[in-house]
Structures are given as structure tokens and as C-alpha cells.
């Protein structure tokens, strides 16, 4: 079984603080949906409201079309994977997994069989009688997933479950989670502040800031067509120019900045204070000035990352600009080189709204 989740004008207030502000989203049955945002943006509160531990102060939450108001967490068709996993340390692995079945009155041998079946599913076939403290981080992760799957939830809720793992394991578990989701067809609602995680795993991503849902779209759209400055700057790297519109023609605007006049594409609802966002992989560093957008720069630093090269440079106004190019065997610029940063107007997006203060640890 799988079920969709509808959030209908959902708000959460803690005293005078509005943690979640009129969130509307329809999550489809069987979808892998991520809420992405910096810490304190209200995403965990949304998860707690769906699982039933926090009541919305306004609005309605429906799971499988049914209003969940007044339904306790133990009656909801959801299973939550906690950030710290919250495995029961005093029970062996199999009892942890079978806890939800024990609650439902299943006999001991049937429980044990089901737990072993789930352990095979998460690739831990010999762990049934181990103690939780004997498991590694990745293994605990799998046990937590198995414990949640055991109750056959319609909706699985995951609260940054990978944040405690090291990078290699995290990437491995991403693929694994995705595979389990595809196999079980359960709706996954995933909370994370890690954009890489959200983009790589999700069918759709909802980007949140200050309790508000900024944009709901596929990972590709979020990255390529962000609707405002927050989304653009929170997801991925950018070169950001502040300025104002000098004129528009066919969706392309002339954008006047302290460093010169550039052409960029008008984003949706661009009004008020505007910025132009330019992805580092969309610029080229050339020896000659181009016909279109072109900024004379001096290279200040070159970082060789293996598969790509990240080049930092400075324009005439002193603004730092980043360019990224694939390592395709061509000459790499050196520090001090005087080059021209050239980019296509289609790739420069003019958006309104504040930029995100990046999490340092993200």
C-alpha cells in the first residue's frame, strides 16, 4: 500500500514564532519527495506534523485522502526514521525490527521470520541476534529502515537519516534508499539540508526557507529554473550580480551592474530588488572578449579537483567570480592570467528575493 500526502495551508506556531507558514503541497502516492532547506526552516516541523507528534495550528493534513486531525501517531499509516535513528538499545536487532509487529499482536515465530526477511531486504542477513551497540553506523541505518518497513507504512518519513554517516557511506546509502523506495513503492518524504542528497534521490523537491515553501519542482527544474534568489543560491554555486533592469526584449533583459551592462533571462515574477545568477559551469574563460556578455577578469586561484577545475577570478570592481570547467585535457589557466569571462544570456537568470546564507557544514 502507498498513499499520497496533502498539505493544505498548513501552519505551525510556537508561541509567537511561526515555524511553518501556509504550506501547500500534494505529494503523490509512491513519490520520493524531499523537503530541502537550511536548519530552522521548518522542515522537521512539517515531518512531525505528518507523523502526528505536532499538531498544525492551522490547515489540514490528509494521508491517502483522509484528514489526520485527531489521529495519534500510533494510529497513522506512517513510519518515521529519526535523525538519530532511535533504535531500542536493549532489544536485539530482530526485536527492534519486529517491534511494530509485536504491537500488532503477531506471534513470536512469525515476527522472527518477518524480521529475517526484512534483514535480507536491507542486506544484513546475519544480524538478527546482534545487539544494536555491535552494529556500525551504516548497519544501524539499515536496521532503522527495516524497522520502519516492517509495519508496512503507506508513507515513510525520513528526518536527515544520513547526516551522521561519512561521505562514502552516505553516497552508498542514497542509492540504497532510492532502490528500496522503488522496490516497495512506498511514498518517501525526506528531510534534508544537503542539496546533493535531495537532488540525487528525489522525484520532486520542495525548497523551504523561513517556514515557507519557496518552490516545488523536479530536481532539474530546481537547479536550472529556480523561481527566486533563495532557491538559486541555496541549491548549487552561483556568481551573483546586483543591478537593475535597463530594458527588456523577448524575455531577455539588459541588466545594469556596477561591473557593466549584461544580458540575462528574466526569471518568473522578477521585481523589486533584483540579482543575476550565473552557474560556474555556464561560463567560459577565453583569451579574447566575446560578442555578447563578456567580463575581463584576472585569475586569482585555480583548484584542480580531478574531474573538473574550479577557477576563481576577480573582475574590475573587485568581485570574486567562479568558473568551472571539465578536465578535458586542454590548457588550465594559471594565477595572474588576464582572461575574459564569457557567458550566454540564456544561462544568466535574473531573480528577485534574498540569497541564502549557506550552511557552513552543509
Amino acid at each position: 500500500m502507498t498513499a499520497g500526502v496533502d498539505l493544505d495551508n498548513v501552519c505551525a506556531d510556537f508561541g509567537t514564532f511561526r515555524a511553518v507558514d501556509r504550506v501547500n503541497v500534494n505529494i503523490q502516492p509512491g513519490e520520493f519527495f524531499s523537503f530541502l532547506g537550511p536548519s530552522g526552516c521548518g522542515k522537521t516541523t512539517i515531518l512531525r506534523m505528518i507523523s502526528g507528534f505536532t499538531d498544525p495550528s492551522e490547515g489540514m493534513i490528509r494521508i491517502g485522502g483522509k484528514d489526520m486531525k485527531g489521529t495519534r501517531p500510533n494510529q497513522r499509516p506512517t513510519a518515521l526514521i529519526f535523525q538519530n535513528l532511535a533504535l531500542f538499545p536493549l532489544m536485539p536487532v530482530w526485536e527492534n525490527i519486529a517491534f511494530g509487529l509485536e504491537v500488532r499482536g503477531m506471534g513470536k515465530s512469525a515476527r522472527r521470520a518477518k524480521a529475517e526477511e526484512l534483514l535480507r531486504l536491507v542486506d544484513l542477513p546475519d544480524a538478527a541476534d546482534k545487539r544494536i551497540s555491535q552494529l556500525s553506523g551504516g548497519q544501524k541505518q539499515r536496521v532503522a529502515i527495516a524497522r520502519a518497513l516492517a509495519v508496512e507504512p503507506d508513507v515513510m518519513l525520513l528526518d536527515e537519516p544520513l547526516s551522521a554517516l561519512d561521505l562514502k557511506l552516505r553516497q552508498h546509502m542514497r542509492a540504497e534508499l532510492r532502490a528500496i523506495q522503488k522496490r516497495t513503492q512506498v511514498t518517501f518524504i525526506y528531510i534534508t539540508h544537503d542539496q546533493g542528497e535531495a537532488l540525487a534521490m528525489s522525484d520532486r523537491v520542495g525548497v523551504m526557507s523561513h517556514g515557507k515553501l519557496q518552490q516545488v519542482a523536479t530536481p532539474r527544474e530546481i537547479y536550472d529554473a529556480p523561481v527566486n534568489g533563495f532557491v538559486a543560491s541555496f541549491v548549487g554555486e552561483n556568481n551573483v550580480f546586483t543591478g537593475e533592469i535597463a530594458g527588456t526584449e523577448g524575455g531577455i533583459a539588459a541588466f545594469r551592474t556596477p561591473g557593466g551592462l549584461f544580458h540575462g533571462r528574466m526569471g518568473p515574477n522578477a521585481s523589486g530588488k533584483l540579482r543575476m545568477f550565473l552557474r560556474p559551469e555556464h561560463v567560459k574563460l577565453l583569451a579574447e572578449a566575446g560578442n555578447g556578455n563578456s567580463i575581463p577578469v584576472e585569475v586569482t586561484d585555480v583548484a584542480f579537483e580531478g574531474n573538473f577545475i574550479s577557477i576563481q577570478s576577480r573582475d574590475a570592481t573587485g568581485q570574486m567570480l567562479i568558473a568551472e570547467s571539465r578536465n578535458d585535457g586542454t590548457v588550465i589557466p594559471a594565477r595572474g592570467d588576464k582572461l575574459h569571462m564569457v557567458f550566454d544570456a540564456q544561462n544568466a537568470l535574473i531573480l528577485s528575493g534574498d540569497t541564502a546564507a549557506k550552511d557552513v557544514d552543509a
Partner: protein
Amino acid sequence: MKDLINRYGTGLTVLFVGLTAFWLIVLVILPNIYLFENSFRPYLPVVDMGGPKDFYSFDNYLKFFESPIHIRVFFGTILYSSIVTVICFVIAYPVAYYLAKVASLSMVPTIFLLLFIPMWVSEVLRSFAWFIILSFNGPLNLTLLGLGVIEDKIRWMTGFRSVMIGLVYTYVLFMLFPVYNAVQSLDTNQIEASEDLGAPWWRTHWRVILPHCKPGIASGSVMVFMLSAGSILVPTLLASTNSRWFTEIIQQWMFESQDWNTGSAYAFLLLILCTVFVSAVMGLFKVKLSDIAK
């Protein structure tokens, strides 16, 4: 030791190490050794002390096993101390859970203060207050009568009823604090995880919270049990003619018969038998001594 001297200087270190050693050796260890030695010697007139009749034997200890009344009193003490322990747990656990997981943080200090205030009054006065409250024409009976809860006055101070009430009142906090610490150390996510997996509240308590609290419950229980079994004040004030406590027998040997030797033997018997009993119960509940020490 070097750390202590570095931190507090030689003078202070010698002072408080010395005071601790004085308390431990002179006020605790030496008197106990003296009583222990005495418990193996017969009770003799002064002139016979050190004479041919003064030799070590188990006679004082055997007196207990030859006296059915004393044995009965001993088992009564064990039984009613156990009941007191259970009642203390039943009262303390919900309060501890409420304080640790439900009450808002701003409320907790106030509640603790309210719990502590009675402890500022001497145990003698508190027990005597219960003597007044529980007396036949006392306020408890009058209140219950007035509310129509009972039709006739209850004689509270007969049997072990009043002793148990007094002991529970005196020692319940010794259960509350270890259990509170235990509940508090439980990650709230564990409780929520259990509920999220569909468990009703009682199963969450039975399978998740209580097992986690076992060491705290055990140390609270040991304290309440030992304090109750060793209590002299509450039974003296609140017991009636048909309810005797083992400590009262020890007191009789020592102060009424002036037979310190037998009294010491009885005191050590109480200590040894209670330790055996506590160890047995701990074994039954699979609690290790190291769990309690945590």
C-alpha cells in the same frame, strides 16, 4: 592526591582528607568493628569480662534462630519493607515520568521545591505529624467522614498500616530521584519511535521506558528497602502493639536488656539477611551491582 594538593594546597587537602578519614574510620568503621567483635562474646557481669567465661561463640546469633517470635518479626519486617518499596515505586514512577518528560522545563524547579520542603522538617516531627493525622479522632478520619467517603471512623494505627504510610512518606523521594534520573536519561525519540510504530502508551512503558529505567528503579528500591528495614523512628512512633519492627527488637536488646552483645548480633543479622534478600531479588530481576552504581 597530587592533583588535590596542586588544586587546593597542602593545608586544605590535609584538612578535608583528614576529616573524611576521621568520619569514616572513627565514626563508621571502628564502632562497627567494636560491635562486630562484641557480637561473638557473651553478655557478662563486669567482673567476669576477660575471665574464663569470656570466649567467642555464635551463641548470640543462635538466639535469633531459636526464637520463633523474633523470626516472625524479621519476616514481617522484610515483607512490609518490600510492600513499602513497591508502593514507593508505584507513586514515584508516574511522578518521575511526568517531571522528566511531560512537565514544562519552567515548572520542574518549582515542583522539586515543593517535593523538598517537607524534607526540611525533622523526621521525628514528620512522623509525629502522621501520628496526629492518623489518630482515631484525627483530621484524616474527620475529613473522610465529612466528605462522605467513609461511614465509620477507621482505626489507622493498627497492624502495619500506619508504619507503611509513615515509611512511604519518609522514603518515597529516595525512589523518586533515581527513577527520575533514569527516565530523564532516556532519549525522547525512543518514546516517539515506539509510539510511531503503533505502540499504545502502556506498551511503550513496558517495553521501552521501564527496561531503560531498570538500574534506576533497582537503586531506588535498594535504598527504600534498606532504609525501611533499618528504620527505628517511624515504627517506634507509628506502630501499634500488634506490629513490631525488627529494629525495635535490636533496641530492646541494647537499651532495655542492656545486652549489647546480643543486640549487635541481631543488628548484623539484619544487615546480612537483608543483603542476601536484596541480592536474591536483584538476581531475580537480572540487575547487576554495576548497573546500580552508574
